[in-house]
């Protein structure tokens, strides 16, 4: 695709008019005849056992149709994944309803009634008693010698080492992973003694542990060694649309109207949670009001209306309230890290010894803790590194991946240390990041596999991003005025770098060119605001030469023949699905050429496809796509989808089979080579102004420069870069959880307590740019961008604050005016650094 007609161009996405007129239907906007309403009874205790439950008074309320309790749920079942591995059921994993709640707010039961007020009134009539069990909401409190455990069995997951993975993301059939189990672990008294000074104690034998290089030599050769503790906040995803669901059963099929990030893949989630064959699951999710990782395949809570609907024999709408969303809506694990970092006098990191403790919540182990190590190793390329970590179970709401999971925390742990080192060494902040930046096929993470080889990326253009950013931001000019006082105001500038995974491989593309000359694209991608639901398919349209006006995208309903599609999480989609779209486009192009050669003579290679035609290269005989589509139907076989490639997923196969015979089918699996792991990078630049009398600060300006390969849709990329930057900035300026430790209950459970940034907290000026260098390992050159802006946004602001005020102001994020004020007053950081959720 030498010159692009669609790729790289702005356009109006096919969902926008419906959105702007209010016709777009999100889960709560659907109505079904006879629909009844569900409300939840949540646990008021952080850990308890239900000892008495009397539903009689609630069932006697006129209008109450059914009550669903934990006893009605199917048992956790084993599953087989895409690679054919048997995944044993986690018997201590998350369940939608329970009689032994492990966090305040966990649903105990649900009441369905003719209307919401009846359901709510009925809940108030339920007699329920709990036996309180030991609980803990602070991971360090649980790791303290003699500290309480969040789960009866212990406080962390022991997950035996997985079988060696093949290089290059191919996956491959490994042995079946063992069942994870909960165990208990505490610091020794000697280890924990350090906590007194607000330093994170280090656990010598942590469950997650790896290293490479000669750490001791790295520290010995260092010109500067810093040993810092930093703490990142726990934050709710707080999608504006809560995880409301409407569901009903019909002819043994279940119809689930929900918000999800990944339409096609949610079928498997529903199937597993409800215990029903995937063929009997229909997911309808045309519009999703935000996900940020919290709705990757819908949410486990969807089983509640699904099973209630079965029990009550009526469609059930479960509107989830904002407070309920705080509890069941997922959050980012906060990480406290201890980083001992050695720097050469040029600023190169010679050694990094990192220990991370993350707050895992009560259920399945989150990858954030481990990612702090892996991402740090990629972003700063330490010459030698040791990582140790533990993800501690607590009685707080379940965590889930949130935009740049673990990567955002990695940046927040490391960036303040690097900024401090640059100040101590007298090195420019941009320069120190440049010298440590990954270049080309940079290695990262632990040595793995029988040959102990480290993984590497497909490409990295961080230095280019830093250079472009410094120029656009007028870094040197701004740096010169940083620290200058104007009345009670002082300015500071900050730069930060950040990275994350940016794409997977191996999925399918599917479309049909019909005899009306139009291109009908089937999209299994979720529509949660990233625009990838249509952006990816622009690649197919461009390859077969169809103008966008003649493309119709079908999405958001798994009954409508969608292809097997990646999870829209971890910035996979634009990479994975442009590859799949490319494969399908190439398949159609090949078929078009073959049809032309058949009808018009010559070899297929003599033909090219463009401008709605297939024609002899250099002009000459050809036919319209409309005509070719009709010919494809006439020819049958592979041309119209009656014969399908062997390697496509069975999900795609079923959809393609249903569409066969309607026109020329483009269908294909992404089998393109892919040497390395795709990662995107962002360099963020911020200037802040702080009032030292109130501690209040404003962000004057923010710039993010992204290394994302080829840009498919500039406005969407810009929105992702700045939107995710703001999400990160929220972590720097105020968003957090607050828990009362005595009772283990949430105090901040609404927007005005959790404080997601408002439009007036955003920088007065925001800009974005990309380095515009395609990734060499993917046909369109595009990588994902949803994740890395988060850490860059957060840390550019953190670094700008410390640039203005000095190093000893904060040791945790978010940085709020109280921290600034008391630190300036006392001349040292004063806010309790290690206490969780304050």
């Amino acid at each position, binding site marked *: 695709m030498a010159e692009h007609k669609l790729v790289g161009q702005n356009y109006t996405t096919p969902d926008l008019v419906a959105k702007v007129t209010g016709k777009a239907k999100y889960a709560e906007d659907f109505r079904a005849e006879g629909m009844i309403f569900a409300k939840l009874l949540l646990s*008021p*205790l952080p850990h308890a056992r239900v000892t008495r439950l009397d539903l009689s008074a609630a069932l006697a309320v006129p209008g109450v149709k059914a009550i669903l309790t934990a006893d009605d749920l199917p048992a956790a079942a084993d599953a087989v994944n895409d690679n054919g591995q048997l995944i044993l059921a986690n018997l201590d994993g998350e369940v939608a309803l329970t009689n032994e709640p492990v966090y305040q707010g966990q649903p105990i039961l649900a009441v369905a009634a003719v209307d919401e007020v009846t359901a709510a009134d009925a809940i108030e009539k339920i007699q329920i008693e*709990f036996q*309180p069990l030991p609980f803990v909401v602070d991971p360090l409190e649980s790791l303290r010698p003699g500290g309480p455990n969040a789960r009866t069995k212990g406080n962390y997951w022991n997950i035996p080492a997985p079988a060696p993975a093949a290089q290059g993301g191919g996956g491959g059939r490994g042995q079946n992973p063992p069942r994870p189990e909960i165990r208990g672990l505490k610091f020794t008294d000697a280890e924990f003694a350090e906590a007194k000074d607000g330093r994170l104690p280090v656990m010598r034998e942590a469950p997650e542990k790896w290293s490479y290089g000669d750490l001791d030599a790295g520290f010995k050769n260092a010109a500067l060694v810093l040993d810092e503790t930093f703490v990142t906040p726990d934050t709710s995803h707080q999608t504006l649309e809560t995880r409301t669901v409407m569901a009903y059963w019909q002819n043994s099929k279940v119809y689930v109207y929900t918000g999800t990030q990944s339409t096609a893949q949610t079928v498997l989630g529903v199937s597993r949670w409800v215990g029903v064959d995937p063929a009997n699951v229909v997911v309808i999710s045309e519009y999703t009001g935000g996900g940020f990782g919290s709705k990757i395949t819908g949410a486990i809570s969807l089983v509640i209306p699904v099973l209630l609907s079965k029990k009550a024999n009526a469609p059930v709408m479960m509107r989830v309230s904002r407070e309920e969303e705080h509890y069941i809506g997922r959050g980012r694990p906060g990480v406290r890290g201890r980083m001992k970092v050695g720097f050469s006098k040029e600023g190169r990191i010679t050694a990094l010894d990192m220990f991370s403790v993350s707050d895992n919540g009560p259920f399945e182990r989150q990858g954030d803790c481990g990612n702090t190590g892996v991402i740090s190793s990629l972003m700063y390329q330490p010459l030698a590194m040791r990582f140790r970590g533990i993800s501690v179970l607590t009685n707080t709401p379940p965590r889930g991946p949130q935009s740049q999971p673990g990567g955002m925390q990695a940046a927040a742990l490391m960036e303040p240390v690097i900024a401090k080192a640059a100040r101590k060494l007298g090195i420019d902040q941009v320069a120190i990041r440049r010298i440590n930046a990954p270049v080309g096929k940079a290695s990262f993470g632990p040595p793995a596999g029988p040959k102990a080889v480290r993984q590497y990326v497909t490409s990295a253009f961080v230095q280019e991003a830093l250079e472009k950013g410094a120029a656009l931001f007028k870094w040197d000019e701004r740096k010169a005025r940083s620290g200058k006082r104007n009345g009670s105001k002082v300015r500071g500038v900050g730069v930060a770098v950040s990275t994350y995974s940016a794409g997977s491989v191996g999925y399918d593309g599917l479309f049909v060119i019909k005899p009306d000359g139009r291109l009908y694209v089937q999209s299994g991608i979720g529509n949660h605001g990233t625009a990838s639901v249509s952006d990816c398919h622009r690649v197919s349209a461009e390859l077969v030469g169809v103008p966008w006006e003649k493309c119709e995208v079908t999405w958001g309903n798994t009954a409508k023949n969608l292809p097997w599609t990646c999870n829209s999480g971890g910035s996979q989609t634009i990479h994975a699905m442009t590859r799949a779209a490319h494969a399908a486009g190439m398949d159609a192009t090949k078929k078009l050429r073959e049809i032309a050669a058949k009808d018009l003579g010559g070899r297929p290679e003599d033909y090219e496809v463009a401008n709605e035609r297939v024609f002899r290269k250099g002009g000459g005989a050809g036919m319209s796509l409309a005509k070719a589509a009709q010919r494809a139907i006439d020819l049958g076989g592979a041309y119209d989808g009656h014969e399908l490639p062997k390697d496509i997923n069975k999900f795609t196969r079923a959809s393609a089979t249903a569409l066969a015979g309607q026109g020329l089918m483009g269908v294909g699996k992404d089998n393109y080579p892919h040497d390395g792991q795709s990662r995107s990078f962002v360099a963020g630049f911020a200037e802040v102004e702080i009032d030292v009398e109130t501690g209040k600060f404003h962000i004057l300006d923010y710039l993010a420069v992204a290394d994302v390969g080829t840009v498919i849709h500039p406005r969407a990329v810009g929105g992702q870069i700045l939107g995710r930057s703001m999400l990160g900035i929220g972590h720097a300026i105020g968003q957090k959880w607050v828990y*009362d430790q*005595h*009772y283990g*209950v949430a105090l901040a459970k609404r927007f005005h307590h959790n404080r997601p940034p408002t439009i007036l907290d955003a920088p007065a000026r925001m800009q974005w740019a990309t380095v515009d260098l395609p990734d060499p390992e993917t046909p369109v050159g595009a990588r994902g961008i949803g994740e890395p802006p988060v850490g860059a946004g957060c840390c550019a602001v953190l670094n700008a604050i410390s640039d203005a005020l000095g190093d000893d102001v904060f040791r945790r994020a978010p940085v709020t005016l109280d921290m600034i004020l008391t630190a300036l007053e006392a001349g040292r950081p004063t806010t309790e650094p290690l206490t969780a959720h304050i």
Partner: protein
Amino acid sequence: MDFVRWGQNPWGQNILTHVSWTLFWASLFAGLMFLVAHGSYMLLSAHRKRPSAETDRMEAAQPNLPKRIERHSLMARAFHWVMAAAMFVLLFTAFLPVVGVKFPWVTWHWIAGLVLTGSIVFHIVHASFWLDFWSIWVGPKDIPELKAEVLREMGQDVPGLKSGKYPLGNRLYHLAIMVAGLSAVATGMFMMTRVRTPLFTRNPYLFSDRTWGVTYVTHGVAGVGLVGLVIAHVYFAIRPEKWWITKSMIFGWITRRQYLEHHEPERWRVMTDRPTGRI
């Protein structure tokens, strides 16, 4: 009518919070009703009065008795009045806001509570080592006295026991106020860990929610009980036939005649060298 008030703790558990203020009104009402009933009875019914000739005889028989007999030492009187003042401050600061007179009352209340506590501690020590400790208590031995007292009150002329130093009514009252007062004081001392004072570091989590509930209700029950008891006490203090006792609490002594008239010299020996003799 609910006698206690319930609330919810952060775990949604029902916890006791306070005694219901309706009990205050009940106690106030009961105190006043007792006053009216007793006053009416005293007005309307006949009472036995010891014939003065009998007292004359006794006085003649005991010429060596001093004219004034000390009934309450200075220390005992000081204690009583300090305690009374503290009690009034406590009751008014506790219950004026309940009846609608709003003012900052907590500091006055706990300071008065400390004064009361101090005076009670003093009183216990003083009574144990310097006074006839057992003279104030009631026990099974008092049943004949009680019987006689009741019959006398009903107008019958009953021979038999007269009171020792403290008439039975006094002693019963002391018992009641001791129970109520010590309950209020003991719970009040713990409750001070829930308010800001210079004496304790605040720790509202000293007890479990349930224990605190019982503590507050006990304090409340004792408090409203004291309302009735104090009303009764004040009433008797100003009744004409008890005025001689009230005066003794002010001046410390009673006359020989009063002594002989109201007390059983055998049970309150003012002349022996054995002041701690038991009744």
